[in-house]
């Protein structure tokens, strides 16, 4: 079975399992909140993964996620919220407009060869501010009055609100991650990696850098916008302050770095960890600490685990497994918590802490017990690409 077939079947399995979770939740009489919890994670996975397609793969650091997300939100807010378009019709428009925006930016920025990566980063930062200003200026978009999405109906066949949101976010999330994987496992992906490592050389070897960067930026913007469009309903009351703040860019950066920017799974893992963590910290009433912890994570992880937690998980998969299973079982058996999420969060924290042990130290501790600490990242990556 080829790696791709294996991964795609993996997608199918998880996709189906997740699709039926709401039914499962009903059946098991689990808290409805689990559904909302998951759909929020889906949102962040999609945002982080789409961001990583540009920044993780091509190395061009973008603060523009908020802009693409915002275009998506406002497309739906204006079309569905103000002009009564059917929601389902408005969402794709959000994605497409974001795509157009992304390509427009790329067309200008990537044309100028001497433009350094940090200049690109700041241009993307500026874009969000400009869009915010535009939205404020144009009463057709916002004009400062905000837009209520609470009146916007969702198609019957999607079920009641939460289930509908769950299904839509799930689909967009799966599409985004699938796109990330397919790009990762393709010439496009490897072309982007080459660009990330040395754009000039990549050109010399026949890689059409400009076109590839455009594609990466376009895909990023499209999925960010698509999910933004869906999210407009979740926001309920769309305002410029809410949509164009640094929250989305901040979190996607954090999540991708934590999970690892060189592998398509990195942002997925990162999103799950960060969101679960901040949700539980928050519900534990540790709100001030929450921010401080997030910030410290950003610093520590950038310095400590350069390749990202996901790579550590792969290399030390057995350890990861044991500690996750172990901690969760212990908590379940001794009834330390009745909340599945809390159990998961605690297990996660323990695991990540273990994974933070540097490789050198780790190998000394491990003495070749599990099969982990395997060959370097790149080899693993290529191995997939190859078989």
């Amino acid at each position, binding site marked *: 079975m080829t790696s791709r077939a294996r991964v795609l079947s993996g997608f199918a399995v998880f996709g189906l399992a997740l699709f039926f979770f709401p039914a499962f939740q009903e059946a098991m009489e689990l808290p409805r909140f689990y559904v909302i919890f998951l759909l929020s994670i889906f949102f962040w996975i999609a945002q982080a993964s789409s961001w990583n397609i540009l920044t993780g793969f091509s190395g061009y650091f973008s603060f523009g996620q908020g802009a693409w997300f915002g275009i998506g939100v406002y497309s739906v807010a204006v079309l569905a919220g103000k002009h009564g378009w059917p929601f389902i019709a408005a969402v794709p428009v959000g994605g497409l407009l974001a795509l157009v925006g992304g390509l427009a930016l790329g067309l200008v920025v990537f044309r100028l060869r001497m433009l350094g990566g940090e200049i690109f980063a700041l241009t993307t930062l500026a874009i969000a501010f400009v869009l915010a200003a535009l939205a404020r200026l144009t009463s057709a978009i916002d004009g400062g009055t905000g837009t209520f999405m609470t009146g916007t109906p969702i198609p019957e066949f999607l079920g009641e609100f939460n289930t509908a949101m769950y299904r839509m976010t799930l689909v967009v999330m799966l599409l985004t991650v699938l796109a990330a994987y397919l790009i990762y496992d393709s010439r496009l992906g490897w072309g982007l990696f080459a660009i990330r490592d040395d754009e000039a050389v*990549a*050109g010399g070897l026949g890689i059409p850098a400009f076109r590839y960067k455009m594609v990466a930026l376009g895909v990023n913007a499209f999925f960010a916008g698509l999910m933004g469009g869906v999210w407009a309903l979740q926001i309920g009351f769309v305002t410029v302050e809410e949509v164009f703040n640094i929250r989305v860019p901040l979190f996607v950066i954090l999540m991708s770095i934590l999970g690892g920017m060189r592998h398509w799974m990195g942002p997925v893992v990162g999103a799950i960890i960060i969101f679960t963590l901040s949700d539980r910290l928050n519900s534990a009433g540790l709100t001030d600490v929450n921010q401080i912890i997030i910030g410290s994570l950003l610093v520590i992880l950038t310095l400590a685990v350069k390749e990202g937690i996901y790579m550590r998980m792969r290399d030390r998969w057995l350890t990861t497994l044991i500690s996750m299973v172990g901690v969760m079982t212990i908590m379940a058996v001794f009834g330390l918590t009745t909340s599945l999420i809390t159990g998961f969060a605690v297990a996660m924290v323990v695991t990540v802490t273990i994974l933070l042990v540097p490789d050198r130290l780790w190998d000394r501790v491990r003495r070749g017990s599990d099969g982990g600490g395997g060959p370097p990242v790149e080899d693993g990556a290529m191995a997939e690409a190859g078989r």
Partner: protein
Amino acid sequence: MSLLEVTSVTKRFGGIVALDGVDISIEEGEILGLVGPNGSGKSTLINVLSGFYAADGGEVVFDGEDVSEMQAHQLAAVGIARTFQIPRPFDTMTPRENVAVSYMFGHSRHSLVEARLAAQEWLDFTGLARVADVPVSELTLHQLKFLELARALATQPKLLLLDEVLAGLNPSEIDESVEMIRRIHAQGVTILVVEHVIRAVMALSSRLVVLNQGAVISEGDPETVMSDAAVVTAYLGDRGRSA
């Protein structure tokens, strides 16, 4: 007609004229040696031919096609590949991946799967098979230079531009490299070698072109060219300055 026809190519950097109306032609299947003192424009010429710099004037015709306006990746596609004096591997990839990537793109497009298999061929050819899967950071300079070659070859070029492959190598490594270049040539690749190590160039090239201050000052078979007065002064002058 010749494989590459360079007609009065000019390149300026601000005030400095790096290439001043250079005319060079490279015949199919030859090894052309390009020599000249520091700053004579050798590397600039390579950068122009490989599309890293856009020329300010002149015309480059490759295989009967005008490629003057082409960008680097288009030149790679028509069959021009180059190496770098200071190796520039993709350092988050293994040698195997380095080679595979350039095979995927380069002259003709190939899938990941094909690339991985094909990579082996060039790795064997350049004797890098042993180190194919270690991080490039663990390679020696000599190995990195060969990786440059393997990567360039993987693009299946008609014309290979070698920018001082020998610089910084010890005598025995130099001999290996010279041997390698001969073997590459034997495969029917036309080669342009830019070199400082005169001994090696003389041994390799069937024809020699000497650049000085951005202009061709002499051209012909190695012996006669190296005895050319202008060339000697250019070099001695150069020595004089640098000493």
